[in-house]
């Protein structure tokens, strides 16, 4: 019952400042549609999530002029950062963590959190601070600015938090000499970046064990980790086939099918509504995660929750592949309890103005529907996530 949840009020009243996306014309990227987005909706969710657009950008589905616009918007929005400290620090030194971050982010193969970590590492490298406290405060402000750049990206926030924690855990008293402390920080930062970068490979090794010969795997969303798992399994000469959901509006399924076809894995595309219909022939479900929350549930592309529900009803295991830096200290109680992240949806035909469109880009899957999580820390059950988080953050 929609009125029971207070979030519909939130939807109406809340326009959280999204520095970059508000001014972007909606990416008429995927198809040459002429539908002007934003419709004058009663739900003015203009805070289009940069995270999801980045994902789209990475995979070459965007047109080049959209990309140019995006870049321009990003560049344009830096001055509009409310974080004055960042501005001042950015002006002090010819280095901006956002710029650095964006540079890293553009690489399609790099996860956002890893890009953030590398950007923060470069902050340390180029920092002119003379004391540890100063360095840490610089890092903090850089991390804050990164986080505020896109509030909807959970892995970005989680990655930044984790990095800060990882770094500052080295107690400052251990090093008398600031330079040695700084180099130590740098070393740890690089190492952390390395680990995060390698996380995918580790997960692939763990995950491909669960794929047996002759199995049918259902995949939703375009997760590079899941892709890595499947590629690794294919390379070890396992025989299996994959069903991909179409993944509207991002067309993730199409891209995924593309990739799999390159490695000669038999792929079948389904429309999103055909999941329950095909669930009989499926042996397991693989999804990635945008963020893993404290309860052990995941936040992932819209549609994951319903697939998990169907799979649970039919007793099919749902496996989540997520790197450990995606563990976030969030705890959503229901679907609307998260920071809303919108993604403009293009229906191909004009929609009358008084019709609302649900544009949320992601949903929350509670832990009881998930079987296992493959992470670089190992294969975990959902309840262990909180254990790890407590050990990390407390």
């Amino acid at each position, binding site marked *: 019952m929609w009125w029971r949840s207070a979030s519909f009020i939130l939807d109406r009243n809340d326009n959280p400042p999204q520095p970059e996306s508000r001014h972007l014309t909606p990416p008429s990227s995927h198809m040459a549609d002429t539908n002007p987005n934003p419709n004058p909706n009663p739900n003015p969710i203009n805070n289009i999530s940069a995270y999801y657009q980045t994902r789209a950008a990475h995979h070459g589905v965007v047109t080049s002029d959209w990309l140019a616009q995006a870049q321009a918007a990003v560049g344009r929005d830096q001055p509009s950062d409310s974080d004055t400290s960042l501005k001042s620090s950015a002006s002090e030194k010819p280095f901006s963590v956002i710029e650095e971050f964006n540079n890293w982010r553009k690489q399609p193969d790099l996860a956002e959190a890893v890009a953030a970590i590398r950007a923060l590492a470069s902050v340390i490298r180029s920092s002119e601070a003379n004391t540890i406290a100063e360095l840490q405060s610089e890092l903090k402000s850089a991390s804050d600015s990164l986080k505020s750049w896109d509030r909807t990206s959970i892995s970005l926030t989680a990655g930044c938090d984790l990095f800060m924690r990882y770094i500052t855990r080295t107690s400052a008293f251990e090093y008398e000499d600031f330079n040695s402390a700084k180099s130590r920080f740098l070393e740890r930062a690089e190492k952390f970046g390395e680990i995060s970068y390698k996380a995918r490979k580790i997960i692939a090794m763990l995950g491909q064990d669960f794929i047996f010969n002759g199995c049918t795997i259902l995949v939703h969303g375009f997760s590079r980790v899941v892709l890595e798992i499947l590629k690794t399994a294919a390379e070890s000469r396992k025989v299996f086939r994959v069903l991909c959901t179409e993944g509207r509006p991002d067309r993730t399924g199409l891209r995924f099918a593309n990739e799999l076809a390159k490695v000669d894995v038999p792929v079948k595309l389904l429309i999103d509504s055909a999941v329950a219909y095909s669930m009989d022939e499926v042996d397991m479900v693989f999804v990635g995660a945008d963020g893993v929350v404290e309860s*052990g549930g995941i936040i992932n592309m819209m549609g994951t929750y319903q697939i998990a529900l169907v799979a649970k009803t039919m007793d099919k295991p749902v496996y989540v592949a997520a790197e450990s830096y995606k563990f976030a200290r969030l705890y959503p*109680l229901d679907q609307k309890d998260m920071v809303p992240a919108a993604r403009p949806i293009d229906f191909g035909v004009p929609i009358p103005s008084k019709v609302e469109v649900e544009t949320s880009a992601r949903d929350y899957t509670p832990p009881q529907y998930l079987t296992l999580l493959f992470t670089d820390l190992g294969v975990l059950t959902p*309840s262990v996530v909180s254990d790890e988080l*407590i*050990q990390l*953050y*407390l």
Partner: protein
Amino acid sequence: MDPRRQSRTVIDPKVRQVGFFAPPDRSQSVPLPQSSTSPPLSDLSPSGNSLSPVMIPPPRTLPPPNRLSSPLNRFSGDSVNAVPVGSYNPSPSVGDFFEEKSVRSPDRRRSGGGGGSGKFASSLPAGGFEMPPEVKPKSLTTVSVVSKLQGNVTDVDEKVGEQSGESQDVNSKQPLKEKTSKAERRALQEAQRAAKAAAKAGGNAVANTKTGKANSVQKKDNASSIAPAEKRVVDHKDKDRKKDVPHPRMQFDDATRVEKAKKRAVVKQTEVRNRVELFRHLPQFEHKTKLPHLEINFFGLNSVHPAVYKVGLRYLAGDISGGNARCIAMLQAFQESIMDYSTPPERALNRDLTAKINSYVSFLIECRPLSISMGNAIKFVKSRIANLPLTLSESEVKATLLSEISTFINEKIILADKVIVRHAVMKVSDGDVLLTYGSSSAVEMILLHSHELGKRFRVVIVDSRPKLEGRLLLRRLVGKGISCTYVHINAISYIMHEVTRVFLGASSVLANGTVYSRVGTACVAMVANACGVPVIVCCEAYKFHERVQLDSICCNELGDPDAISKVHGREEVNYLKDIADNESLQLLNLTYDLTPSDYVSMIITDYGMIPPTSVPVIVREFRKEHIWSG
């Protein structure tokens, strides 16, 4: 020795053993191989109260030989186990059980008792397990296992106990001063008995504690076993007997045991006549007789500090209720008593102080069974006492203890509540309809704070008889201008469809994520779950417990059954008046119940928002730091 040996081998068949019994692990003997098990256990009060009441015959004192084997003589940390949580009374059979294993020295028995109590599935919160403080042999430097550790020590095997027994045997062979002959001991015993009778004649029921306790513990107590036990009395001062408390897990099924417990009790209690069979293991006394009797005796009771006495009276009268309030009141009473405390001559401060605390706790138990929060707080206090460096002067010790208790109250309760409120208000949004049950201090603070922050929400308060605690909450919230709805619990399924969030308080959260809270909470949580409404439990971390409980029966608290049959303010509604004594009518007034973890969506503690499955993680990571090592 022979009589002792006999008594040990008997196990009372009628005793119902609750919990799982592991071999007595008492890491009582510190320096021995078994001490390898003791390190993890925090050294707790080295008080002379080593004998657990579970031990058979008045095991108040360490037998003289025990003194010899000072390292071996471990007075059981049973003293710690005294506190029953809720009305969790240990089965005396535990002692019996151990009796078999422990042979010989009373020490052994003690260890047995300690181990037995430790075996209960959950570590009991340190309770006022009264052990008569034993005259510590000078060489005795062992530390007793903290009662809280008792539970953890379940795997300490019998071997340990046996070793200690053996060592004690060895020690007993050594001719030390305690080795008096039987005749001498008996003569001394007679003298003490006479003294006790005189004291008793003076109306001091406490004098009975020692014998009563010993007897109550040992079901199959027989005269022969009393004799050796009494020999041990030789070295005890009379007043030590008062410190004996029944094993926290005493089962109240057996009439003889209950009799003996009563003899020892400070508070005169009479049992209710018609009791529900299933709950016979929980104590139930007539409430109306307790309070007047206690009030009369206020100035007569020397063993209990007036501040503690006051608090006990207030518990009994129901003036203080709620986990936090009771815990804070108790700790403040302890603070006062510590301030007034002065070490008697020739006694070690920490042991004597622990003994005193134990006696206070046993008194409080008699007024009203301890809540889990109180149990944990007592464990904390005792661990602090035990960890005091021996070099401090008395005033320094007192100052340290007072400040530590204040810190505990501040950090674990007051600040913890602030942190909980800070986390919880993030989950309250405009337009919410929040439901709460009964009256929880944490939930009240959350609602008030959210209102101050300007969030627009309304509250549904669910209440139930006979306590009707929700009315107080209703009054306070309405006084602040929050719009409230008040329903009784029979309307819960009707009102649940309008609700967006349920906030519940808890008396404790157990290790498997089960919430132990006021009776009726489980109902509310289940209905909320059925309607898809998230259930948020707000509980400070100091209330977490390592125990696991599967149903609401094995450990609970029985309230006054007359409260059910009467309606306050409507005297004409007393349909049960004439049949109250009917054998077929049994009145049951439960105080607590269990909510399975499946119905709980999230627990908000001072460590943040955690899923119910992470409670043991918090206990594991943070209990040790804060409570045990201090």
